[in-house]
């Protein structure tokens, strides 16, 4: 130190001291670790509380301002719709756990279910060939048409929804007014709905009005599904092209025809030609002889052979999600 002072004078000394400082900074008096932790915790708590207060205040201002569009004649914003749907689905899944499903495959249960469905559900949900009435049409979110194969819910979940209803959706709870077996009857009938055509439903109503047991039901079409098992969908695809179906129908990966309806997602479609339930036998019959069902239809009779119609139907049932067909094949009650 003295040597440095001798050699470089006072300036050198200052410089030397500064260098020494950089190389060996004096140990800072470390704050006690407890204090630092306390500071962190304090900051986090204050931030969280302030955040909650701000959110609550914002929410209150939003609610009291009245700017939220509550009108039911406009749909929810997409994110709101998604959130409501997820909340509803998860809640039903959670709360319906442990419900024991009785045997729904009983004629009397289903028939009773039809009477109750017609009286309590049809108003908002409609029925095959029957629209929801003005009350049902005005509800938001829209009450779903229940006539397609219901692959969203299990029997227990449907029973839970019928029993307890759904808040903020217009779906009422039926548990205090309908008995257990009545509510199961509605579920049993709903499982039957996707096999019932508009004409079948008219017959059901006519029979009920005359106090008769209905003779006509939807068909489970075991025969048609059995025929599909031996079909060749790949050959069906080639046959579609051979018969020129794509010149009238838009068919994914085949052609863009715009004379008749597109055949995309055919497996998910509920009706053919607005008349027949979309089941294998009906599809094959429609392909072979459409005029038999709808004399004035623009769909021509191309003289399709029986085995060709079977292969074409098998290919059409590969278009779209398989859940509907699987449900109808395996779960349709039979009696």
């Amino acid at each position, binding site marked *: 130190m003295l040597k440095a002072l001798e050699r470089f004078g006072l300036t050198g000394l200052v410089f030397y001291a500064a260098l020494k400082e950089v190389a060996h900074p004096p140990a800072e008096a470390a704050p006690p670790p407890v204090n630092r932790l306390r500071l962190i915790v304090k900051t986090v708590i204050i931030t969280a509380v302030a955040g909650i207060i701000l959110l609550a205040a914002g929410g209150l201002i939003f609610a009291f301002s009245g700017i939220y569009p509550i009108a039911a004649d406009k749909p929810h914003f997409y994110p709101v719709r998604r959130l409501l749907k997820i909340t509803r689905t998860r809640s039903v899944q959670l709360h319906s756990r442990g419900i024991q499903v009785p045997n729904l495959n009983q004629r009397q249960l289903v028939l009773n279910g039809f009477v109750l469905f017609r009286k309590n559900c049809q108003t908002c949900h409609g029925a095959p060939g029957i*629209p929801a009435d003005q009350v049902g049409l005005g509800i938001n979110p829209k009450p779903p048409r229940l006539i397609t194969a219901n692959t969203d819910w299990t029997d227990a979940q449907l029973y839970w929804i019928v029993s307890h209803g759904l808040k903020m959706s217009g779906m009422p709870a039926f548990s205090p007014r309908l008995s257990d077996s009545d509510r199961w009857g509605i579920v049993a009938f709903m499982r039957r709905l996707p096999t019932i055509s508009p004409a079948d439903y008219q017959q059901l109503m006519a029979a009920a009005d005359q106090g008769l047991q209905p003779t006509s039901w939807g068909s489970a079409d075991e025969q048609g599904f059995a025929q599909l098992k031996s079909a060749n969908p790949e050959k069906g695809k080639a046959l579609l092209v051979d018969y020129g179906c794509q010149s009238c129908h838009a068919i994914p990966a085949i052609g863009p025809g715009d004379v008749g309806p597109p055949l995309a*997602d055919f497996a998910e479609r509920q009706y053919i030609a*607005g008349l027949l339930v979309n089941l294998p036998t009906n599809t094959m019959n429609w392909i072979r002889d459409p005029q038999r069902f709808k004399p004035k239809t623009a769909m021509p009779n191309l003289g399709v052979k029986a085995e060709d119609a079977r292969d074409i139907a098998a290919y059409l049932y590969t278009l779209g999600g398989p859940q509907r067909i699987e449900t109808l094949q395996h779960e349709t009650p039979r009696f």
Partner: protein
Amino acid sequence: MLLVALCACSSGVVRAANGTGGDPELGERFLYAYNCGGCHVIPGIAEARGTVGPPLTGLGTRIYIAGLLPNTPENLVLWITDPQQVEPGSAMPKAGVTQQQAIDIAAYLYTLH
């Protein structure tokens, strides 16, 4: 690119309005109000993902309605207001759509290509 898209879009709207005399924007509202989407897939309409009947995608260039009627504005309006008159027993119900509402709905559907 955007300009081209805008032009294409507005000319579609003009064509639709010209063909039907209806208002596609009102049509969009009525399509929601009558829950047409409960049975049909309809591009641009909220919740319109129904699989009961055929998709209405591309209806503006479809040749036939219900496999029975040539797709003209008059026939489309008739089909929307009273499908049972065109085809008794059809799964398409008479939902109570008025003539003017059907004209607006048709105007919207003719924007779908």
